[in-house]
């Protein structure tokens, strides 16, 4: 995608967009799992998969973006991707250590 196309602005929100989808999935999965009394290990596995998928997606985007910081907006996009990666690990990582449905 050309770095000057309007759609390139989506790179600015891609990182924290993924952080948001992780939030929605973690919240929904946890709520459904607890409501249907899934085994705690199954809920934890589901949460871990959501976290891993998002970390992997963010790492892939960072890898892609590292090679194309041709203008200021794309540099800012790279910074937001890195910030979103840290935010994702910080926000959802500790959940794997907690008891799911207390």
């Amino acid at each position, binding site marked *: 995608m050309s770095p000057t196309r309007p759609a390139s*602005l989506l790179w600015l929100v891609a990182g924290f967009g993924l952080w948001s989808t992780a939030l929605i999935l973690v919240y929904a999965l946890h709520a459904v799992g607890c409501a249907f009394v899934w085994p705690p290990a199954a809920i934890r596995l589901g949460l871990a998969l959501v976290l891993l998928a998002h970390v992997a997606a963010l790492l892939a985007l960072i890898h892609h973006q590292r090679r194309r910081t041709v203008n200021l907006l794309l540099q800012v996009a790279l910074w*937001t991707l890195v910030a979103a990666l840290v935010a994702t690990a910080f*926000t959802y990582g500790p959940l794997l250590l907690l008891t799911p449905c207390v």
Partner: protein
Amino acid sequence: MSDALCRHKELSRIWATGPGWQRLGAVNHSILGLRFMITAAVFFAIGGVLAMLIRAQLATADSAFLGPESYNQIFTMHGTVMMFLFAIPMLEGLAIYFVPKLLGARDLAFPRLTAFGYWCFLFGGSILVGSLLFGLAPDTGWFMYTPLSSDVYTPGINADVWLLGVTFVEISALTLAVELVVSILKMRAPGMSLARMPIFGWYILVTAMMMIVGFPPLILASVLLELERAAGLPFFDPTRGGDPLLWQHLFWLFGHPEVYIIFLPAAGALATIIPVFAQRPLIGYRASIAAIIAMAFLSFGIWVHHMFTVGIPHLALAFFSLGSALVAVPTAVQIFAWLATLAHGRPRFDVPMLYVFGFFFVFVLGGLTGVMLAMVPFNWQAHDTYFVVAHLHYVLVGGFLFPLLAALYYWLPHVTGRQSVHRIALPAFWLIFVGFNLTFLHMHWTGLLGMPRRVFTYDGSEGWEVLNLLSSVGGFILTMGFALVLMDVLVQRRFGKRFRRDPWRAATLDWAMPTPPAPYTFAAIPEIDRRADGLEPRRLGPRLAAGDGYLARARKGWQETLGVHMTTGAPEQIVVLPRTSHLPLYTALATGLVVLALLVRAYEVAAFGLVLVVGLMLYTAQGAGQKVDHGKLDAGRGVALPVHTEAAEPPPWWALIFTLVADATLFASLVFGAFYLWLIAPAWPPSEVMEARWPALALVVLGLSAGPIAARAALQRLRSGGSVAPWLVAGGLGVLAAGVGLLRLLTDALPDPTAHGYAAVTFVLLAYVLLHVAIAALFLLSNAMRFAAGYLSPKRQLDLRLTRLWQDYTAATGLIALALALGLRELALTSGTLP
């Protein structure tokens, strides 16, 4: 007569608003921005008087100054007025007035929409405040928690005033947010790529996007609660399959980002002012943009920290708590960028800098108590105490009011053409600073001693009396400070020293014009060749006045400004803006009639008002655009550009896209509500579910699918020069089929929507689709009328492209809603098997 003076007279004749009655038809951003700010300031004064009444009541124990009923109305209205009638409109006014001037445009993208937004704000605010005079003001707290605000516990119209009045104001705010986003992205000076945009533009862009996504959940919640109160649909009634916590979720999905929506424009003002007084460019421009974006997202993901005590599982509390603490990081990035700018510059001190200092002190304290409240164990202790009241005032007053006062002193010379008389400004600042801290600093201790919010009195044995008395004294000192600021503004306007240009030696475009500004803002639109916070307004201003720029010649009496490429800022089109009109006023009056009629439950009058609103909007649309093709016209500096009606991506195209983003957010909130009730609400499963009426369902699917196909065929026919009438008729038949099918489902297939939350939420899902189908019919009607009047041609296709976009959205959400209605039917039947 000099060339510059001739240009000034000619442009003034085109852009000026006439005297007397014509003032009510003003659409100019300078006039409307000021009106927004002045009206918001009046509401601030009203909110301030209400605060004084609260403090007078709480100053002593067992006070008989106010009774509980009056007190409930007063504290509810204090919060409501300050949040909805002061903070948001004030930031909108600031943005409306300064965004075009900072970005090098002559006006915003949709001047009549600005005017409509202002009148809606004024009328909605007047309904809310007027209710106080009749003792009918909302009295259940500014966040209107259910079930207290449901009709069982709050009969009468007090809660309806809030729901309808605030929704009226919110719709105004939403329209303005769309306008600001489109204006920032499409209407900058040529050469001003997004990477060169002043930081204030970034702050307003992100804020407006947050409003587009943040306000729909509250609008939906208000509609649902009003439906419950007026028609008995039990969304929040746990005895009939509803859940009161759904209200809290929807409210705080709006309410938490709202804090940042208020803070970010104020931060934008700080990031503009601090470099001017530090006498060096802002440090951390890129990091600030990244921080603003991060803050915007994080602010949406932490709404549950307002609900830590409602019984949510600990694991969910953990990630909302972590997110709440995390949001301090992007905030700190901005604060350190400003401190670094000051540290590396050569700061000079003036009145705006006093308020910048006040901001640093107050806001950082509020931020620190915010991190404390983000920690669940502490939150449980401090919840609903005066600690929270102190915290929120430190954040909102520190994060909005102090920066706003800095902005007032910085930009008032722009409005008045005169400079401040500092003799009054200095004592005013110290009264405000000392008064504020005296009111709220030890209120933290009042809270920690256990004083709950919203109690109208206390007996004095708790040890709260001295602290409350001090808070009340501080509150009155604070008020004296604001009175001095008001006096200072009046004195400056009358006696301030005149100046030639750019009194602060700023580096942004807003000072490259005579002050007060002319109605056309820029005599010529500048070419920007560097970051637009490093300009030289003192040199640039005279060049622009002499016509050295784009669109320096008046043409055909048109109000012209430039449209540019979204990211690069390359000139793309000449945007011709509408001139003064009373239609926005009439449309807002008709909208006000609908709101008032709904308030007193005169539904026939409301329906009449709605017809009036639609008729006025259609009439307004009839005069928009061009009846002939103009081809490319000279824009100056050797550049020829098409008029926006012939351009590929004109402002209305983007406006509809961002409107649909808001609409999709509302739809997503509704879907969330449906799933939430299924999963969490008690009293499920329902005793009856929707019948699967396949003929009606097939009719809806057929009608929804026909819309996009007919829209594409009509567009193709227009491009080839043929008549679009047959395809408009085909689109109309599709709309008719979908409408009939939906009505059949609503009336025949669905159980009584007042019986259970399941039926109520399915009813709203189908009604949502029906509303969009009805609006699609209006699009088609407008297309037909404008085609007949000659506004459409192979080059002027915008109307049909907008219709195609609307039909695509209606079909997509309609099919999802149908699938969800059927899916919810199956899920409802399984919900009885939940453990």
